[in-house]
């Protein structure tokens, strides 16, 4: 591939965390509450567990094929043609995911900050920003994620911490409302918010020690899932389940409710949204990068830079498909659920077949590891 690359454990974790935490945080509480009312925190937890399951499948696959991305090793496992269909599906799904991320954030910006700006402009600004950044190599990719990590975590934690003064713990009860058929559906929807973590298949080949992937995944799920959980808890305790259902972006409302002590700034939500651009950017950056990287892998190209602007118009058109905000969210939920087939079921099938066919390529690495402990 390109120059020898090394992504450390810390960088891998940062990539996963900042990919997972994205624009989905804004609407997460309402999705959770709609499915499970006051059981939303528990539901979020279950969703995170499902995400962890999918990540551990990917980590296991990565451990078996430490020098290849999913595009390459799926061909070894399934044979080229079937695998290529799967890979095309992955590329399409991630292109769609990038488009919807850009669209969702564009909607947020147009609705709450730049009311007179056309939606197309905000979406295209975000996409161009990402496309420009995608021309970097894998090392810079991980540097960018590592650098933005504090700017992604800090505002979320700050909002939660500041808003808890209005919290009412009674709203959390009952923790689990039994006999509601939406549990599985709900937790799957939450798990779909973690789908960006599929990117781990791209970074494993660049890690010097792929065996540590699982630890990185675990840490990433703990941090990002923890933040999700905190935000859901804060929203439910403050607004209550029924009130939350009426909001589109409860997290933004949460930020609007809070204010800094001594009234330094009147409204925090705008500042929150501004800093949140980094979170959206990193998510979009990951999915976009994954799209073009997988596409160039699929076409056996050495360099992915060519695609960064080539794909831009297609992704823009995809982003413009939904009619309005509500339509966008219908799209996101549907695509997210079907995406689970690609991000969970497909790797699981790959893993099972790999075990059955006894395909593995880590012998060399294992010997290497024994030589230099």
């Amino acid at each position, binding site marked *: 591939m390109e120059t020898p690359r090394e992504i*450390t454990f810390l960088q891998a974790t940062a990539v996963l965390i900042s990919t997972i935490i994205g624009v989905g945080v804004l609407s997460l509480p309402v999705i959770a509450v709609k499915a499970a009312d006051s059981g939303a925190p528990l539901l979020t937890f279950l969703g995170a567990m499902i995400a962890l399951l999918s990540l551990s499948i990917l980590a296991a696959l990565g451990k078996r094929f430490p020098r290849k991305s999913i595009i390459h090793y799926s061909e070894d496992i399934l044979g080229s043609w079937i695998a290529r269909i799967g890979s095309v599906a992955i590329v399409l799904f991630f292109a769609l995911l990038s488009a919807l991320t850009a669209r969702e954030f564009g909607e947020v*910006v147009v609705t709450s*900050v730049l009311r007179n700006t056309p939606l197309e402009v905000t979406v295209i600004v975000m996409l161009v920003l990402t496309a420009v950044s995608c021309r970097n190599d894998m090392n810079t990719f991980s*540097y*960018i994620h590592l650098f933005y990590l504090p700017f992604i975590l800090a505002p979320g934690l700050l909002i939660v911490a500041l808003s808890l003064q209005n919290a009412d713990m009674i709203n959390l009860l009952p923790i689990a409302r039994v006999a509601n058929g939406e549990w599985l559906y709900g937790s799957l929807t939450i798990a779909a918010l973690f789908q960006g973590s599929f990117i781990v298949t791209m970074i494993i080949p660049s890690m010097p020690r792929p065996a540590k992937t699982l630890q990185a995944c675990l840490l990433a799920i703990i941090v990002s899932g923890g933040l999700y959980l905190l935000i859901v808890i804060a929203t439910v305790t403050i607004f209550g389940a029924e009130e939350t259902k009426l909001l589109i972006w409860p997290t933004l409302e949460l930020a609007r409710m809070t204010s800094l002590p001594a009234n330094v*700034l009147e409204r925090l939500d*705008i500042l929150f*949204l*501004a*800093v949140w651009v980094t979170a959206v950017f990193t998510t979009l950056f990951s999915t976009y990068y994954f799209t073009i990287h997988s596409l160039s892998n699929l076409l056996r190209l050495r360099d992915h830079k060519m695609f960064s602007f080539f794909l831009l118009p297609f992704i823009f058109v995809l982003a413009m498909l939904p009619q309005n905000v509500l339509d966008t969210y219908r799209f996101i939920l549907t695509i997210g659920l079907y995406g689970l087939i690609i991000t969970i079921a497909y790797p699981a099938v790959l893993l099972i077949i790999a075990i059955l066919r006894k395909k593995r390529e880590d012998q060399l690495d294992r010997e290497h590891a024994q030589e230099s402990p």
Partner: protein
Amino acid sequence: MSMWQRFKYRKETRKLSSAKALIGSSFSENQRLPAKLEETLACMKETFGGTDDFKTRRFEVFGRYPAALIYLEHLTNQREMKEDILRPLLQKNAAHVESGSVDRSELPELITNDILFGGNVSTGNKYRTLVDRILDGQVAIIIDGLDRAIISGSGKVEHRAISQPETEQVIRGSREGFIENLGVNLALLRNRLPSVDLLVKTIQIGRKTRTKVAVCYLRDVCNPALSKEIIDRLQKIDIDGVIDSGYLEQFIEDNHLSPFPQIQNSERPDKCVANLLEGRVIILVDGCPFALIAPAVFSQFYQSVDDYSERFLLSSFVRLSRLVALLFSLIFPSLYVSVISFNPELIPTEFAVAVAGGRAGVPFPALLEVLIMEVSMEVLREATIRLPQQVGGALSIVGVLVIGQAAVSAGFASPITVVVIALTTIGSFATPAYDMALALRLLRFPLIILGGIFGLYGVMVGLILIVNHMLSLRSFGIPFMSPLVPGQWQGMKDTMVRGPFWLSPKRPELLHPRNSVRVGTESQSIEQPPHNTLDPVSVGNRRWEDSDGDST
């Protein structure tokens, strides 16, 4: 023009532009000196093209052998030539001459070993060496009948005294700065680092100026690949002249299009020595008081020498304030523009009212207002640099009055804008490195425009673009944002704050030094000083007949 003529013409021009042609073409590359004085002199005269400062002084060695001194008049140390070269050669009653046994072929050895006083004596038998030495300011002695010339003496160029560096002022620390003379600068470095491990490699760059460039590094610290790479990059430079170290910087930097400097420059010998000790390479250029320090990462550009001379707690505080100033100079005006034009509800109501009141008489949108003020500030700043010092004061008074007071009362700008611009300008002055401050000054303008179009969203997008660019920059392979971003804990202690010396006992690993021990393990730690020598309770106190904590 026929084919043949064209070919001939091209051959001619190529000959003219080749290196040989630069110093006259009256001899070929390796031509040796003839054993005839007149012939050599004629050839040299032709080579120097009848320039008026080329001097010939004819005399007879020991009153016997006809000879001549040739030199460039203003480049040579005249006193040394007179006392150490001419006087001993003109002696007629020297012992070995009296005996009359001197053979012509033994003459060069006799003169170099017994007669000449100067320390710098050599012989040469090629025109090329002769010309080069003369251009260096040495004196060539040509004796009739000998096929080699004796070269002695040294050039003497007047240089100013060592003075305080103008660009990098410190409160506490050395007052010495580099000057234009390479020899003096190297002496300053050597004097502070008297070690056999300090290597100085000299290369000449520039087809015409043949500027001496010294590459200095510590043999046992600096990564050998780094010094080799720097020398390689320097040797590839092909330019007619090197006037300043900035020329070299632009040739050897990694990314030519980036606004950020990837090589640091400094006027301070102490800073250079500190960087040598960290494993960096110093490039000194003759005729330029600025040394280049390579490679450089972002954190270096807001560090100052006195950060290390003050105690760590205080210098950490100062460094943090410098970082705030740096951030101010980059984003403050764009934040102001975006908040005023898009989200005035962000700021507290009372203040918003005051701002709106101030802006009431201003006809322009905030974006335009800030841009006008910023541009006039840039003009004012540039003018203050170029003006002679006597007028500079007057200009700044005019500037303050015009920009500050009159612009507001003329309804040209609101008072709050003036405050913002002033803070920004002061912020950019607080950045110790001028080139970094310049980069941030430049990047401020696109940010202001983005902020004026897209509000805070635009400012964030611009910042993300800038930061992404910085994260992708490399200086000789080192990530520009290191040690912060690849996550090297050792180096991070000296990034945002300045960690105490005992906390960072190793050299920063981002430079991959050969030897990483900086502070010995036995050094002082914060817990307890080893002896409370002058503790009033214990100093020489004798209690119950035994000495309790004597002060040794």
